[in-house]
């Protein structure tokens, strides 16, 4: 059940067999003449069987990215460009953003399921949980009998470690951790290939968080689905995710294998994020935190959006917008990318600025 150790083969090359490819996705908030560009040309690939972590401060677009990719974005969110390619088990590719209503309805839950933030409150308080799970199954399997759907619901509950006699319980009779697991059972009922989890453990205490995370890991190994795990807790991601994408101000600033992010962060923001958690173990280290707060997305200028809070910014950062490129560090995993001008000396020099080397803190 070890997820993150390379020996288990969990580190599959993400690009080889993608199940979900987000390409140049852009999202605006607001319909007026002056919308806020919340996501700008975000590209992300999820490999089959992979657990991808999405981390960043609140308001950086993590949830927006997940909801836009599933077309669940509530107004005034508007997808203005890009495509989201889903590859089915038979190898057929469909663009989720261009599905008609009927096929979208069929695709949801079946291909791609989502466990919402605050899932503890996503269950209806007036129906028994068995019926809530069975309802979802029946909507997608019209031919199925109610009894069969109930049996399937019982099976799902067992899968997440809840006794099937709880089928007749109401949500208020379950603890927070159990309700969260009921939500996971519902999401997995139709054997989706992609499971998106938006802060699934934030409201739980650590012991329960550990149980849920282990359960997801175990189910992933057994059923072989892929997971996008959204959280702000980077240390948790390092344990469960194969790969981590760090977002800042609506853009991905670093995308690398999870241990690489932890041990060898290449972007100043990833490094700062890692240093804002007090460690429970090891020597007490000085915590730096991140000065300032995330930028107002309505007032973004050019250049790097992190520069005001960055210890390594210089005049080039105000003029040039960094691109996601391979880090300028020898012997790095060639698949990892980061968006920082320190890793793009040629471009900086070509634009007429003094090229600065990668600081030692980000090249270790």
């Amino acid at each position, binding site marked *: 059940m070890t997820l993150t150790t390379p020996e288990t083969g969990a580190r599959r090359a993400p690009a080889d067999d993608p199940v979900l490819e987000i390409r140049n996705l852009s999202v605006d908030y607001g319909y007026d003449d002056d919308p806020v560009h919340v996501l700008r040309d975000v590209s992300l690939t999820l490999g089959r069987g992979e657990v991808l972590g999405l981390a960043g401060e*609140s308001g950086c677009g993590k949830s927006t990215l997940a909801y836009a990719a599933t077309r669940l974005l509530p107004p005034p969110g508007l997808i203005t460009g890009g495509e989201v390619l889903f590859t089915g088990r038979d190898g057929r590719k469909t663009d989720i953003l261009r599905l008609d209503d009927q096929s979208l309805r069929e695709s949801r839950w079946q291909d791609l399921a989502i466990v919402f933030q605050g899932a503890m409150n996503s269950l209806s308080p007036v129906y028994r949980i068995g019926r809530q799970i069975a309802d979802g199954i029946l909507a997608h399997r019209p031919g199925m009998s109610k009894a069969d759907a109930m049996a399937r619901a019982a099976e799902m509950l067992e899968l997440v470690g809840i006794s099937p006699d709880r089928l007749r319980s109401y949500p208020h009779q379950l603890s927070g951790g159990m309700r969260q697991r009921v939500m996971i059972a519902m999401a997995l009922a139709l054997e989706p290939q992609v499971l998106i989890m938006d802060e699934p453990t934030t409201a739980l205490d650590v012991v329960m968080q550990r149980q849920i995370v282990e359960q997801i890991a175990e189910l992933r190994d057994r059923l072989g689905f892929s997971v996008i795990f959204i959280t702000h807790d980077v240390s948790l991601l390092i344990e469960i995710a194969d790969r981590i994408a760090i977002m800042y101000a609506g853009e991905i600033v670093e995308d690398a294998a999870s241990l690489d992010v932890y041990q060898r962060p290449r972007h100043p923001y990833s490094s700062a994020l890692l240093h804002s958690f*007090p460690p429970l173990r*090891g020597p007490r280290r000085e915590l730096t935190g991140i000065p300032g707060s995330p930028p107002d997305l309505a007032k973004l200028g050019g250049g790097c959006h992190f520069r005001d809070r960055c210890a390594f910014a210089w005049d080039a950062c105000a003029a040039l917008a960094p691109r996601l490129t391979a880090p300028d560090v020898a012997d790095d995993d060639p698949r990892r990318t980061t968006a920082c001008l320190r890793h793009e000396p040629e471009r900086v020099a070509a634009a007429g600025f003094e090229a600065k080397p990668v600081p030692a803190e980000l090249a270790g």
Partner: protein
Amino acid sequence: MTSLRIPGPDRPDAPTGAPGDVVLQAVDLRKHFKLKGLGSRDVVHAVDDVNFELRRGRVLALVGESGSGKSTIARLLAQLMPLTGGSIRLHGEDAAVRNRRSFRRYVGRVQMIFQDPFGSLNPVHPVRHILTRSIRIHRGRLRGAELEEALVELLDRVQLKPAERYIEKYPHELSGGQRQRVAIARALAADPEVLLADEPISMLDVSIRLGILNLLQDLRDRLHIAILYITHDIASARYFADRTMVMYAGRIVESGDSESVTQDPKHPYTQLLVRSAPDPDDLEARARGARGEAPSLVKPPSGCRFNPRCPFATDLCRTEVPPLISVGDEREAACWGYSDRPDRPVLAPAGRGAERIETEGGAA
């Protein structure tokens, strides 16, 4: 120390002692909530037999999972609800409030900060009104320049500088961290000796949390306020608190200085808690197969309340409540394993490598 003790009622009854002096004492604190229902005699045993002391210029952390009674203790100490048993002592004298006037006097010395800065500030009033009201209640009717000076000093104290920028703002115009700072400023307006901070950072963004903790640390060091820091995040207790108390199902199970409680936990529950926290440095040595949930507090397990989940539990643990037993320098743990009774349970060594095996036997 630039004092906040500008105008305001003199307090001959408030001795200003040296750091380390006991300010507020909880003695055999007990709170049972009656369950609703006709003829129902069941009670929720939210807090039982809790003893501790808050000292000048020291931070005491209270750690536990949700539902363990942490917040109930904060509310009892703030005298927001009556005690079922035990007493609260302020400078050694019984501080039970009997009427409105004695309550006002009490809250002038013991202030509380709530978890949710979005809910604890009235959205229809600007910062000026929120703080002025608190100043007027606790320091008498200040006016004009005097009031202005007090407001600026308060905002300065919580590092909202320059004060003009924030004073006319409404809560919705502030970020979460700024709002929490205003809530802290409001508490400081009373010039309290004790601050009860109920999960002050758990609703805030990761990058802001550190700032709030550092602010509280600054208040402790400069104003010598005694702080009760309630959290479910034991890592932040290690970073911020001088002493840590661990609570389980309404009882204190372990206490000691923060560093030893987190690095060398004695009680099996604390051990489970510490091992459950994500640890990116050592992906192998973590709690596996930890199962079970906190018990019902309506009919708590007899004996040690952790016994259904404890891998070492014996008949002794199931019948008799363990007292807090001294387990080292100013450290206590409520576990029979540390007693000298012949029928005591045998605890496995608390070395980190051996721990994984222990929990696998722990079934609920």
